[in-house]
């Protein structure tokens, strides 16, 4: 009874945060002499106006969901896995690399797709483990380690696209030579959306939900995240658990990279991670690290991303506006959470 009351109070504050974020963006729009209602309508239209757009929203939803699933594991262990972007990138590089090996062989394409995606997961996990090793054995905070590894991953990616894997004659920002169609993840009718990737995302969500909520491992991770010394004294091998959480996150990030390569772009491109890793960090904070809210919030973010594409086309506003909306949403909801804690704490 009491709990439902605190729940509804908390929902009220979240909605308040949402309202403030919208207000904030409205003010910005007014300042630049744009019409706010028009902009919001365009975003809505852009996301839901026709089946292609709806499909595109889901194309973005999948990677957002997957990376955030992974980030929930590291957040639970008390870690800020800023290196997530690099882990996506390395996952994509591994997938591309392995797929290139099999291009001219007679092995069944289905098998090749499976092997390359597993390779992507391996790559992501390795890159994440590196951040973990730096932290555990090198004493490098995972935030700095992750930032450094992100730079290296990006450099590696660009190096490959313009070097070893460049398109014959025309190395360019458009990426590597696209893979032949039978190496693509099968898509849904004519859309870029693959039912397989939706399946992976849903499966990932279910796995992470039960892993963190229902298993002994998840509880031990939580203990490590909330009090490392005490957890160790209660018999939990702490650094091993942190390492595992990095690896789990890396698997998800690597899978994300693999899907971007096999299902969306069908090649390696320079900005293959598309900033989804950082958006995942925002989403994780926004849902207060609770897996239940992940699917709808990720969908909302994806819709904003796709809807924003219409802005520069129709009313000459930069599509970064949706980024502003997303960022301010996180800020205002966090602020409201802080206010709520003060308010409820007083009672």
């Amino acid at each position, binding site marked *: 009874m009491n709990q439902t009351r605190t729940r509804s109070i908390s929902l009220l504050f979240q909605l308040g945060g949402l309202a403030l974020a919208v207000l904030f963006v409205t003010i910005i729009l007014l300042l630049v002499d744009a019409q706010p209602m028009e902009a919001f309508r365009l975003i809505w239209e852009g996301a839901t106006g026709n089946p292609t757009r709806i499909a595109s929203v889901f194309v973005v939803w999948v990677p957002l969901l997957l990376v955030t699933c992974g980030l929930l594991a590291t957040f639970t262990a008390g870690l800020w896995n800023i290196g997530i972007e690099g882990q996506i990138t390395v996952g994509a590089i591994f997938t591309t690399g392995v797929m290139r090996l099999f291009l001219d062989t007679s092995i069944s394409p289905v098998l090749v797709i499976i092997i390359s995606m597993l390779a992507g997961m391996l790559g992501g996990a390795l890159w994440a483990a590196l951040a973990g090793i730096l932290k555990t054995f090198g004493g490098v905070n995972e935030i700095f380690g992750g930032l450094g590894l992100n730079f290296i991953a990006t450099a590696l990616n660009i190096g490959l696209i313009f070097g070893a894997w460049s398109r014959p004659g025309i190395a360019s920002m458009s990426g590597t030579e696209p893979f032949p169609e039978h190496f693509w993840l099968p898509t849904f009718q004519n859309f870029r959306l693959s039912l397989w990737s939706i399946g992976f995302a849903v499966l990932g969500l279910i796995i992470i939900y039960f892993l963190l909520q*229902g298993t002994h491992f998840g*509880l031990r991770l939580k203990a490590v995240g909330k009090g490392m010394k005490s957890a160790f*004294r*209660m018999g939990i091998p702490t650094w091993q658990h942190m390492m595992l959480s990095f690896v789990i996150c890396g698997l998800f990030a690597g899978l994300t990279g693999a899907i971007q390569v096999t299902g969306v772009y069908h090649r390696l491109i320079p900005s293959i991670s598309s900033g989804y890793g950082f958006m995942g960090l925002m989403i994780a904070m926004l849902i207060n690290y609770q897996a239940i809210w992940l699917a709808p919030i990720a969908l909302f973010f994806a819709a904003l991303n796709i809807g924003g594409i219409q802005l520069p086309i129709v009313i000459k506003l930069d599509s970064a506006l949706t980024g502003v909306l997303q960022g301010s949403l996180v800020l205002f909801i966090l602020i409201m959470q802080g206010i709520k804690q003060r308010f409820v704490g007083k009672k």
Partner: protein
Amino acid sequence: MNVEFKNINKHFGPVHANVDINLNIQSGSIQGILGENGAGKSTLMKILSGFIQPDSGGIYLDGKAVLIDSPADAIKYGIGMLHQDPLDFPPMRLIENFIVGQRGGLVPSYKETIKEFKELQSRFGFSLNPEAYVDTLTVGERQQLEILRLLWMGASALILDEPTTGISAQQKEKLFAALKILAEQGKTIIFVSHKLEDVEILCSKVAILRKGYLVGEVPSPYDTDQLVEMMFGKVISLGDRNTVAQNDVVFELRDLFVEHYPLKIENVNFQLRSGEVIGLAGMEGSGQDVLLRACVGLLRPVSGKVIVKGKDLTNKNYLEFMQNEVSFLPASRLEEGLVPGLSLAEHFTIAGEEKKGLFIDKEYFREKAENMIDEYHIIGRSDSTVESLSGGNQQRAALALLKKSLSIILLEHPTRGLDIESAIYMWGKLKERCLQGCSIFFISGDLEEILQYSDRILVFFSGHVSPPLDAATTSLEQLGQLIGGKGWDQVFEIKENYESNANT
């Protein structure tokens, strides 16, 4: 400053932690607050110092109603509080810590502040080095720093929540002398404690809380039995000493040499028998905590051997000791003992040795937690987070979490923060384990506790360790002298004999 509580009520969910409390404290007096664990003492003090707000009722300072909304507000009104569980200190120098609390003035004057600091501390006979880092201080020294800081910020009422747990006898004397000086200057002192003898020598008046109610106020001089009866609603007596030690050795230190700056503990030879209880006596920082940590792999010895049940575990880590049925319970409960943010049920799930499948049987562990809550008289629910428990109840939970199948338990201040009744009960629980062959190694700052419950005693003095003394033939006086560094010639004679005996 005259401090008055009027009709204070505070609920935490279903718990009514303070019920209609009315209490008037004269300026210049030292007011004692007594009560069993979970009686509501810390809650009342946190209300006065702005950490929590009452549901109803008010606080009057010198007759004026005030609204204390935050600790910063409290200090503005001149109220400062020393906490039961010392809050985190950042790794800063003492003087920086001091300057951080400064009001006004953009650029703190380093030199001047140091001068003022020295002046202030000389008034109380404290001798803290302003250039030292805060995290190198003992609990007692942090407390002195905190008192100085609060006074410097202009506190005219000081609240001390169980200040004497964890400090040495000498530090306690200094503390009491300082509090008396402050009271004479007209400051109001509120002193919360479980130790009747402390309250009796220090306070001019005590208020007794039980289950959230103020059950009475008594002026000095006191009748101890009356105080105990008011606290618990019944008379309490200590149990008899009893020994259940057997002859087989379960734990052994051979020529152990541990170093932990600035202490060097050399040449420790020692055997623990099954069912035996060994008390480690000494002033805080004399090396007993260092030795205890070296015994469980939390600190690497420089040389020598640690042998558990015939197995050489030297240089193994703590987790391996745990696998060999050794467990260690440190003094800082929320830092090293329990995980803040996790519920009791979650703690029992982690600590449990059964039902270790992939998925958690939540129903089972909820029930287990509820049973343990009953068995150990913990005031709290299975879904209460550990930081919402009162200090004493956190300690009970930590003890309840010790695995069933242990052969050696090492405890740092096992009854710190427990009221007398719970302390006796806890020792009953520990002795039950001894009957089944479990051995106990414990540190305590309370010499009477050591004499009452140990079979043998190791005394520490600045890194020196005495040979085991028989508790039955050691007196409180003797022990007090030894921890103060007196009478060691005699002890070393015994030690030589002991060692030559051990060698033959």
